[in-house]
């Protein structure tokens, strides 16, 4: 048994199963030739405006019910601002403080029996595009087909303490969302992705350890390997008397290691504010009752 207790939280991105994108009428489909499934709206051309796909909100409510979470009945849309070449507007339309899915908890099976993992909230947002780095030297190409694909980001509390628990949690989430019919949750097609937060602490410590975020995890196997690697890496650091640096790391699948992406000092200030182009959505008790009726659980 390790001298440290790992503390693990997950941010799961599930693609919602709509026919069209979240803010325009481009079709959503896996693959497709680059830049053929996009339009002036999802590529953010000047003057265009997003119009919220109601089905995305409905699926959000369904997900809330399936995940045993509360429904945010007054839910608003916000802008998350940052520059990146795969983000055409230089802001992602997302949700900040009034998400469609409120807190709740789900039960997982562990070696030591049943355990509850709390969900902090889940929010709807648009996906970004994809950068392609091969083919031409010194050049990156952008594919905007995925821009505007609707996602549900499910943020857990840091309630897991091993890679196996994280795997059980993720499988449980995927099963519930599939059963509710809101997402296919296929990691290999990118319809389920996860970022992992890992820290470790001594059993007697009252404060949480310094947290490291790991991105770019494309399979369950990668998630397990990344968590195990990261626990080992942080253990070595603490054993050597050093301190863990708060940073974002990415998982290198080929080498089975995590690598630094950016430190806390270089962290983004997302300057969230209410998206003025999309009016808040009010979900009535009747709306929820209607959606409940459509569900078989």
């Amino acid at each position, binding site marked *: 048994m390790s001298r440290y207790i790992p503390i693990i939280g997950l941010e799961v991105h599930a693609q919602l199963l709509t026919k069209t994108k979240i803010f325009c009428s481009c079709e959503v489909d896996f693959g497709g030739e680059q830049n053929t499934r996009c339009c*002036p709206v999802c*590529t*953010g*051309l*000047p*003057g*265009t*405006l*997003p*119009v*919220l796909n109601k089905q995305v909100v409905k699926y959000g409510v369904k997900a809330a019910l399936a995940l045993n979470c509360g429904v945010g009945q007054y839910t608003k849309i916000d*802008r998350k*601002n940052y*520059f990146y*070449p795969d983000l*055409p*507007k*230089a*802001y992602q339309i997302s949700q900040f403080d009034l998400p469609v899915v409120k807190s709740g908890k789900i039960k997982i099976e562990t070696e030591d029996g049943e355990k509850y993992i709390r969900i902090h909230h889940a929010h709807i947002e648009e996906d970004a595009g994809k950068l392609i780095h091969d083919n031409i030297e010194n050049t*990156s190409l*952008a594919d905007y087909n995925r821009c505007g694909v609707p996602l549900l980001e499910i943020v857990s509390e840091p309630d897991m303490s091993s890679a196996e628990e994280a795997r059980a949690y993720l499988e449980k989430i995927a099963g519930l969302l599939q059963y509710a019919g809101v997402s296919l949750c296929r990691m290999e097609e990118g319809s389920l992705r996860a970022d992992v937060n890992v820290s470790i602490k001594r059993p007697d410590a009252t404060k949480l350890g310094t947290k490291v975020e790991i991105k770019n995890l494309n399979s369950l196997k990668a998630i397990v390997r990344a968590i195990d690697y990261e626990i080992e890496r942080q253990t070595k650091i603490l054993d050597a008397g050093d301190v863990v640096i708060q940073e974002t790391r990415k998982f290198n699948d080929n080498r089975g290691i995590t690598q630094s992406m950016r430190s806390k000092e270089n962290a983004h*200030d997302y*300057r*969230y*504010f209410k998206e*003025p*182009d*999309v*009016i808040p959505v009010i979900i009535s008790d009747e709306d929820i009752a209607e959606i409940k009726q459509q569900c078989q659980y």
Partner: protein
Amino acid sequence: MALCDMGILELRQMLDSKEISSVELTQYYLDRIRELDSKVESYITVCDEEAILAAKRADEIIASGNTKMLTGIPIGVKDNICTKDILTTCASKMLYNFIPPYNATAIEKIKSQDAVILGKLNMDEFAMGGSTQTSYYKKTKNPYDITRVPGGSSGGSAAAMAAKLAVVTLGSDTGGSIRQPAAFCGVTGMKPSYGAVSRYGLVAFGSSLDQIGPLAKSSKECAEVLNVISGRDIHDGTSSRKQIDFTSELDCEIKGLKIALPKEFFGEGIDEEIRQAVLAAVKKYEKMGAEIVEVSMPSLKYAIQTYYLLSSAEASSNLSRYDGIKFGYCTPKAKTYEERIMRTRKEGFGDEVKRRILLGTYALSSGYYDAYYKKALYLREKIKAEYAKIFESCDVMITPTAPTTAYKIGDSYNDPVKMYLADICTVTVNIAGLPAVNTTCGYDKDNMPIGMSIVGKAFDDAKVLGVADAFEKNFMSVDPSL
């Protein structure tokens, strides 16, 4: 009556009775632009060929007898409203080559009536300014005195109307950008209620404040244009489902009308000549039987701060997309992505745009959001509440449109704070999303036009136009001599 003095309604008759063809009318305006616009510099792009083609199509429609209000009418469009296959620059170097593959909904609507687009009109860069001097391309002059500014940001739209270089023009108004230049150039300009006209295709500045509106020879003409361009749009989630007939109050009864006069708008900082002219206009309404009610808007003293925080915060986000990757200007000299984006924005934006991006970014930044942006949101609600209270007992409000008449080119352009303060009379209307129309109510000692604003409650646009129309019927306007 000269052809250029005729409005939509007179021209409609002439076109339908075949006294003139749309091609002839369009050619007449293109000739006027060629002859006079070198003095005024109101157009960035003139669409000679496309205009004549559109006029030919309009003439075919007219021959078939299937005409609508704007069929064959030559119109000028502010250069921040997207026009398919026609350069749309926002008067910025950043969009020097941007040709939208789509029309704004307002353009789609006027084109569906076979109106003729003469060209794209100059403005302050990205609609940020009140003088049309921040344009990357040219500095528009006031037709009443070409040593003076036309106001802004829709300065090209207002100057083109005053110089009669279009029958009607479209502008946009985020904090007074239609009404103030309309006042400076002595024309009628209307900012409709927020949500009345679709914003789809209007290049965003302050999304919660922006509205497209007309500048025209009269309130009546504005109403006719608004009836065409307004309405619910599936491409704009903030467009309203309310149906407005903008002409419905054009001959409304002034007797018994309750007009609010907010005393803060007539205090210090407003030119004496303007105060006198607006108060004289109010007297005329009183003679027509209106009741004048003095009211107070204490939060006016926070209006400028509130407006500049809200509009700049939204602008800082809206203008982030100009990174040189997908369209528009891109720096020729950059090695990395970061360098490219920084150089592109440094070289592509003018000083005023940069100033507002900095201000807005700061106001939204972590640690400053609560101190600035959040307080501005709070004040927005306070300003809305004060208007709501006044409109519980009053039908419309009358204020000056600007604290001064058109000033000399170069005058306060270099002092941003002085420029910002000049928006005091117009910004609260956008903050509250209300309809307001500027109409000319007099001329100062230098013969420069003086404008007054008639403001109404949300979606009472028809009333605002009706009240302005009642004044215009008895007002003798003076043309500029070019």
